[in-house]
Each structure stands twice: as C-alpha cells, then as structure tokens.
C-alpha cells in the first residue's frame, strides 16, 4: 500500500502569492492533519480534518485554510505568502483522530522569496 503522498515536493513562490499543497492519505484513513516545520524546530500543528470536517486548528493566521474532499484527500492553501512561511509542510493521516498513530508524508518544501 502507498503511504501518505504529498505534492509537490518542492515549491518556490514569491511574496504575496498564493499556494496550494496537496495530500493523499493512506487508503482507509479518514483523518488528515497538516503541520508546518520551520528549519530547526519541531512540526507545528495547523489543521486537522476528520470525515471532511475541521476538527482542530492551530495558532495560524486566517491566510491558512484547508479542506478535505470526499475521497479524504486534502489541500492546504496559504494566501498572501510571507517570507516566514518558508518551511516544510507535512501532512499526516490516521485512522481516527489526531492522537492515534499518525503516518506522515515526506512533506512539501516551500520557499518564499
């Protein structure tokens, strides 16, 4: 079975632009969470979706939004990009809620210039 897949793997954007990151969970997993990991720090929780509903939101500005589709894949959108948004964006899927075993993808490396 395929693991969690994220696309694209790398991305370069200019300040002020908008970006969409995509995540396909492991087959059968209905919960998807998004994390931001800045270099040298641990992942920071952004969103959790379960059964297509938002179940948790971290301390991120409204420029960050997400959604989950009927096939449980998910998109993370970031508007009005700032240099500080440069990070590794990780998607994790799990069978239940966020605090069961989560399986992470390889991440999308976003660079804002």
């Amino acid at each position: 079975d395929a693991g969690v897949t994220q696309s694209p793997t790398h991305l370069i954007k200019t300040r002020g632009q908008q970006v969409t990151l995509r995540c396909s969970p492991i087959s059968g997993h209905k919960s998807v969470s998004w994390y931001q990991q800045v270099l040298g720090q641990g992942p920071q929780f952004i969103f959790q979706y379960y059964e297509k509903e938002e179940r948790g939101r971290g301390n991120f500005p409204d420029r960050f939004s997400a959604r989950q589709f009927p096939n449980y894949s998910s998109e993370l959108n970031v508007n009005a990009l700032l240099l500080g948004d440069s990070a590794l964006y990780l998607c994790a899927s799990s069978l239940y809620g966020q605090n069961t075993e989560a399986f992470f993808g390889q991440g999308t490396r976003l660079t804002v210039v």
Partner: protein
Amino acid sequence: LAKTTQPISMDSYEGQEVNITCSHNNIATNDYITWYQQFPSQGPRFIIQGYKTKVTNEVASLFIPADRKSSTLSLPRVSLSDTAVYYCLVGDYSYNTNAGKSTFGDGTTLTVKP
C-alpha cells in the same frame, strides 16, 4: 494543552542503550504519550505510544511512572542509523473534540557515534 520538556541533544555510541526522558507535568487524564523519530527532510515516524506503566515494541520501550508527569523512551543497542530527532508528544485521545491537539516541541537530537 500539556507542554513537554526534553533535552536538546544527546550523544551515544553504537551498541549502547539510550534513554531519553520527557517531562510533562501538566498531563491530563485523557492524554496519551507518543514518541516520534524524524530524519532530516523526512516526515516524523511513529515509534511508540503509551498511557501508563510500560509499553514495549520491536524497536523501543516506553516507561511511564505512576504519576505520569514524565516518560522515558528507551532505545536498546543503538546504531548509527538511529541518529535522528526524537519528539515526545502528549495529547488527548478523544478525537471527537477539538481538544485533541498534539504539540511537537523541538525534540531531542540524538547523535550516535561509532
């Protein structure tokens, strides 16, 4: 939201047992303790999870004292490939509530030397 405290870094040698302790003084009744491993430019990988006492799997053991205010991840006979960052997480298991948020701290960077 329970905050965790771990050592920033640890060094070890191949073949030794490594114990990484995590402090979580404000752990709540519904919280579980989970440990992840992360290699550079990869997503974290689940190692082990527990609620109380001792949990063991094929790669690690997790020791949790009765008061649950700390936990210790034990890695037996480490090798060079165990060099990674290890994160201790504490979070609510009840996914039906928005309280179920896990927070990664900055982790413990373990360096295994030959």
